[in-house]
């Protein structure tokens, strides 16, 4: 249920930033965050109602892409899918933990960058 904590951070950001008011915003959720979208949107709508905010938003899930700092190989989460429930849970809480449980499929290095699909961010155009 830490989806509530993330929803709260979104609502507070929108409430505090004038440039976001009245805009259509995209809430981008990284694949690594692996949040329950139903709970997240429920929490978001409850908080919007509670704080009497107007928020025109859409939620977009961004696939995770990694690039190995050792060999330059780019890979996706699908190529290194985790089956262990606890490992998935730990990445869900702290996306950087992917570097504990995943290695580059090409050279087995643990030194890789998360290029996309890490966590939560808000954008507007």
């Amino acid at each position, binding site marked *: *249920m*830490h989806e*509530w*904590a*993330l929803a*709260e*951070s*979104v609502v*507070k*950001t929108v409430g*505090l*930033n004038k*440039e*976001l008011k009245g805009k259509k915003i995209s809430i981008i959720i990284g694949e690594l965050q692996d949040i329950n979208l139903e709970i997240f949107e429920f*929490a978001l709508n409850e908080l919007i109602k509670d704080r009497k905010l107007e928020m025109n938003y859409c939620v977009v899930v961004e696939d995770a892409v990694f690039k190995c*700092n050792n060999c330059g190989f780019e890979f996706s989460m699908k190529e290194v899918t985790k089956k262990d429930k*606890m*490992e998935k849970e*730990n990445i869900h*809480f*702290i*996306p*950087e*933990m992917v*570097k*504990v*449980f995943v290695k580059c499929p090409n050279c087995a290095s*643990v*030194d890789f*960058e*998360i290029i996309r699909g*890490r*966590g*939560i*961010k*808000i*954008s*507007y*155009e």
Partner: protein
Amino acid sequence: MNNVFDPREYVISDRLAEIKKIILVSGFKGGVGKSLVSVFAAIAIARKGYKTGLLDLDITSSTDDIILGVKEIYPSEDKGLIPPVFEGIRFMSFSFFSMSKPIALRGNSVVDAIKELLCVTLWGELDFLVVDMPPGFGDTFFEVMRLFKKFRVVCVYTPSPLSKKILNKILPLIKTTDIEVVKIENMSKISGKGRLRYDKNVDAAIGDIKRIMNLVLYKDVVSNLNLIVGQKI
């Protein structure tokens, strides 16, 4: 994508709002005993009845869980992560999420991981939060300075001239009017204010609170507790 906001930034101050005092235990040089001082201070503060938190931010080399001897505890979830309580201390560490496996992170990932943990951790009301900092004067320290805003820094050093020189180089950079700084000499040959004696029995007591509390080092932390927290407790 024209404009991007990191929403975690906006909620961290709320997460820390009910903490009366934050104490960063640093020292900038490795091996000076920051983790031992952090954990022993948290135990001593909690045993005086204060609401105490302990946060291990030494991401790549977390050891507070080993010193405390925590086993089979994990944060619980309720609109965020609630630190488990161990010996009266609300304890949070990256070791919970790494399942005690090594964490290899570059600087930008360290900063992201710290922000994530601070964004989702619900400390609630605390009298003191003791933060065990990693060695060095880099990403973690600057990010914590930026996000915590108000805190006291306990600089742990040893009688080694290398440790003293590093500390004396860095101190002028962090001493500002808003930051309280105190120096504590660990592995000291003598006892007294701001000094913690060398204790050869520490290693054998790791992971055992009862044995820890019989250590000379623990007793010296207790007698220096007012200096560490910056007030009479």
